[in-house]
């Protein structure tokens, strides 16, 4: 069977579906029999629900996302009034059909609309510097050790989500990439960052902290040198590693939380990332809701320490983060889970596409550099609109 043709037909039929990166290629989930819109009340019921497994099928799972606000609510952090487009706080689907796809996705866009898209940024360079200064002071005073300011790029547009996703995965086959196409919204993401990988009682997380732009002179081994010599990137990374060790330690048996990979370089289309891998063995009686509350929202996109930094961030940010720095993934009926951190993503909702990026303020970071780093992070996505 030609799965690529199947995919095209499915897309053109207007049915909802989800694609998620698998080890070898992609998995496609569709024929949704349930769609659960989450809010801060029903999420407990959703996560605590006992599922009957008689025969296990490969569709015995819920797949979807938790938005940023919902994850704050879960750990008791309030979000003040913000500009809000009223996207649901979280949505999960129960698929009845799963198809494996190769990593070479293709889609021919029949109608080629040439449109020039101009993105508007919600925080300009000058304002960014101002916020930056304010948080540097907070760092000096010890209120936060690191904080990630989010900037948003927006444009009015309808997009062909499958076309975008195919082109994106051709240039950037990120390990946590996914797309959701539903009737009233779509998400296209090339997230590189896995937050939770849980199989049985084993759990791991793979934080990313540190980014450098790729060019002719910056090869992989040079990138490693760059990160090692760059004190700012190193310190930022160290902090996140200790923070993720902490979050795992909440739910893992004493002595089982271990660093498997410490500060290695991963290569992407436009940039290199500085990455670590941490593993642990879950304590008995730990439920999935405990895991989600301990790990989300992922520390590397917030800053440290989590609670005080979230409060500072939420006071500062005037627009809802929506999906950005939330988590996408699945919960199997047997309890296994896989979740990423939603970054490097386009959210298309109500005729508007938005892309967010965040980079860290630490004691010795520089506003100009961080502002530009945000742009490097979204560039590959903005280029899709050309």
């Amino acid at each position, binding site marked *: 069977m030609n799965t690529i043709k199947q995919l095209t037909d499915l897309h053109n039929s207007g049915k909802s579906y989800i694609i998620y990166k698998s080890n070898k290629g992609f998995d496609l989930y569709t024929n949704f029999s349930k769609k659960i819109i989450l809010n801060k009340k029903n999420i407990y019921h959703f996560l605590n629900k006992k599922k009957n497994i008689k025969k296990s099928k490969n569709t015995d799972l819920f797949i979807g996302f938790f938005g940023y606000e919902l994850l704050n609510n879960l750990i008791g952090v309030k979000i003040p009034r913000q500009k809000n487009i009223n996207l649901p706080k979280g949505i999960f689907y129960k698929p009845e059909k799963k198809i494996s796809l190769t990593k070479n996705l293709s889609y021919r866009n029949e109608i080629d609309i040439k449109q020039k898209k101009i993105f508007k940024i919600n925080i300009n360079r000058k304002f960014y510097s101002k916020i930056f200064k304010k948080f540097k002071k907070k760092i000096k005073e010890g209120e936060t050790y690191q904080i990630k300011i989010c900037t948003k790029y927006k444009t009015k547009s309808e997009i062909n989500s499958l076309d975008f996703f195919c082109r994106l995965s051709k240039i950037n086959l990120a390990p946590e990439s996914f797309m959701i196409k539903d009737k009233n919204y779509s998400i296209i993401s090339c997230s590189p960052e896995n937050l939770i990988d849980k199989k049985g009682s084993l759990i791991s997380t793979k934080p990313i902290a540190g980014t450098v732009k790729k060019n002719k002179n910056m090869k992989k081994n040079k990138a490693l040198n760059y990160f090692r010599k760059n004190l700012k990137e190193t310190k930022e990374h*160290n*902090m996140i590693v*200790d923070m993720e060790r*902490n979050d795992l330690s*909440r739910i893992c048996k004493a*002595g089982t939380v271990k660093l498997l990979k*410490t500060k290695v370089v991963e290569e992407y289309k436009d940039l290199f990332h500085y990455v670590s891998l941490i593993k642990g063995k879950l304590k008995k009686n730990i439920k999935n809701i405990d895991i989600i509350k301990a790990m989300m929202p992922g520390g590397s996109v917030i800053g440290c320490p989590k609670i*005080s930094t979230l409060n500072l961030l939420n006071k500062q940010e005037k627009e809802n983060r929506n999906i950005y720095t939330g988590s996408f993934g699945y919960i199997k009926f047997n309890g296994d889970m896989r979740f990423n951190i939603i970054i490097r993503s386009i959210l298309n909702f109500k005729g508007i596409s938005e892309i967010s990026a965040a980079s860290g303020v630490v004691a*010795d970071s520089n506003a100009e550099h961080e502002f530009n780093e945000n742009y490097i992070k979204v560039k590959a996505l903005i280029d899709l609109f050309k």
Partner: protein
Amino acid sequence: MIYIIDHNDSFTHNVVHQFSLFDKVECDNYNNIDKTKLKKASIIVFSPGPGKPKDYPITSNVYNKFKSKKKMIGICLGFQQILFCEGAKIIEQRKTFHGFQSNIKVISDKSLFKKGKTFKVGRYHSLKLKEPFKVKNFDITMRCLESKVAMSFENNKDKIYGFQFHPESFLTVNGNLLIKKILSA
């Protein structure tokens, strides 16, 4: 039992994890301190945390109440908290050490550790102890080799110990040994 008071930090559970290697550990948020557990505990630990000692008056009360009755250990903010209760001033330092690995040295012969010994440790602090600091039975026992900032104190009479650095960080080499020695003192 070791009772750890959490100051809303993202490193507290690393401390819990580390101390659990040696004894049963209970941990509560500083807003939620359990009096029964406090009484039952043989050792009280003050966790790291954001902000400054002034922000945590309840922790100060706990310290003053149990001083010289139970062994107490402070880490980072906890270190500053104890010294603050002893009348010290905690001030901003020029350079901020967040996620920093430093070499520190044992500088006192009153220490449980051998004078002259060096350690590689992880640091997360923008504030420091203002010196000179002189209080009876409290000795500054370790300093940063480079900046000379106070990195630990020991009060071996009342069994009160504090580390400005983070023994539980992955940046600290042999952190478990450090804790083991303090626990068995």
